[in-house]
């Protein structure tokens, strides 16, 4: 593990700034589009527009945890601390987006089907996901030594590998109330795609900033 850490490079900070500006622009645009551009859905009314936050959040969550998985493998094979930092930062952001999914889901369920929680398989899987990755952070926070990185990486791999099985189990366990692959067309589809892009850029911007923090933290520790 002989690398010089120094402080975050200028190009990193610049990238962060650019991404945040882009994120701001795109998110604003997606909110405008959701409010004004996309039509109101016939059956569920204006509340349906929550989908433009709910679905992108779900997708970003999975991307985030997938990144944690990949970065964990990278750390275990290369032993470079950067990969562990990426894994942890990505996991943190994944938790944020998962929380958004778990809040918007019940809100939607309440107005659409008049019940807060329906044990709907996808939402239930997300709940389990949330608990799992919360465990990742609790474990990581409890370890203060060199083993933290290895243990976190192993966890990052093990948890992600479990996801398909958990998904399948919950799906079998409960039939689906969730609108199954509703095909969107026209303005709705465009708004959804815009929202996905917006929240993904937001995720990237947040990741860059979060990593900058890790970079500084590591540099301080190295110098002591």
């Amino acid at each position, binding site marked *: 593990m002989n690398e010089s850490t120094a402080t975050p490079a200028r190009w990193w900070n610049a990238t962060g700034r650019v991404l945040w500006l882009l994120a701001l622009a795109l998110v604003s645009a997606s909110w405008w589009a959701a409010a004004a551009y996309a039509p109101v859905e016939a059956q569920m009314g204006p509340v349906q527009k929550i989908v433009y936050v709910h679905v992108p959040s779900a997708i970003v969550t999975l991307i985030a945890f997938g990144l944690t998985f990949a970065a964990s493998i990278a750390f275990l094979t290369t032993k470079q601390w950067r990969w562990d930092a990426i894994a942890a930062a990505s996991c943190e952001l994944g938790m944020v987006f998962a929380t958004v999914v778990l809040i918007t889901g019940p809100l939607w369920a309440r107005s659409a089907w008049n019940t807060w929680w329906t044990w709907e398989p996808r939402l239930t899987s997300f709940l389990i996901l949330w608990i799992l990755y919360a465990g990742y952070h609790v474990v990581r926070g409890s370890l203060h030594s060199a083993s933290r990185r290895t243990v976190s990486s192993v966890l990052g791999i*093990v948890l992600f590998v479990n996801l398909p*099985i958990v998904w399948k*189990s919950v799906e079998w366990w409960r039939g689906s109330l969730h609108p199954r692959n509703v095909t969107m067309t026209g303005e709705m589809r465009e708004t959804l795609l815009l929202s996905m892009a917006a929240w993904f850029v937001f995720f990237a911007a947040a990741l860059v900033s979060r990593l900058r923090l890790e970079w500084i933290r590591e540099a301080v520790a190295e110098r002591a």
Partner: protein
Amino acid sequence: MTLIDVAVKDLRLHARDARFLATLLLFSASLVLILSVAFGPIFREPAREAAATLWAALFFAGVLGLTRSLDLEGEAGGGDAVRLTGADPYSIFLGKTLANFTLLAVVFALVLPIASVFFDVGDLRTLPILVGVAALALLGYAAWGTLFAALARGLKARELLLSVLLFPSLVPLWIGAVKCTHALWAGGSIEPVRDWIKLMAVADVLGLALAAFLYELIQEASE
């Protein structure tokens, strides 16, 4: 053979610790009692309620057992001595898994008759298949549990963390176990829920396979 030596060593240590065994078995029995009181006195669907009770009790008993196995290694540094022998880490993992599986099997053997009696379910005809289902579930539990317990070593509030980490990973095993047990006790056959057996087997294999890659890393993750 390392696998057998490790398993025997763990089981011997458990067998000599009467206090731990008594706690484990009493705790499991109490859980069954508490849940039957919660569901009773008239059981609307005894097969289902009994199945749920059985596997809930086993889950928590398992956490206790796994944590105890872990503590035995840390007590006087025995775990480090094992590392120093240069023995193959995967064999060590398998040995510990076997020991944990045996411990869980003992708890199962105790809790099953109690649940059967309290809920008035089960019969000898379905017993062999039930034992087979239980073996599948408990093997997966032992494997994943041993893996997670090793990760949690050295952490404060180990039991809490272990439950949090373990439960979601055990979802397929536990849902499968409850469904199969319920099917056996309600209908006498496992046919309608056969797919779950496959899923449980996949979960078992996955746990054992992941450990082959990861256990050595976990073992060597030093301070």
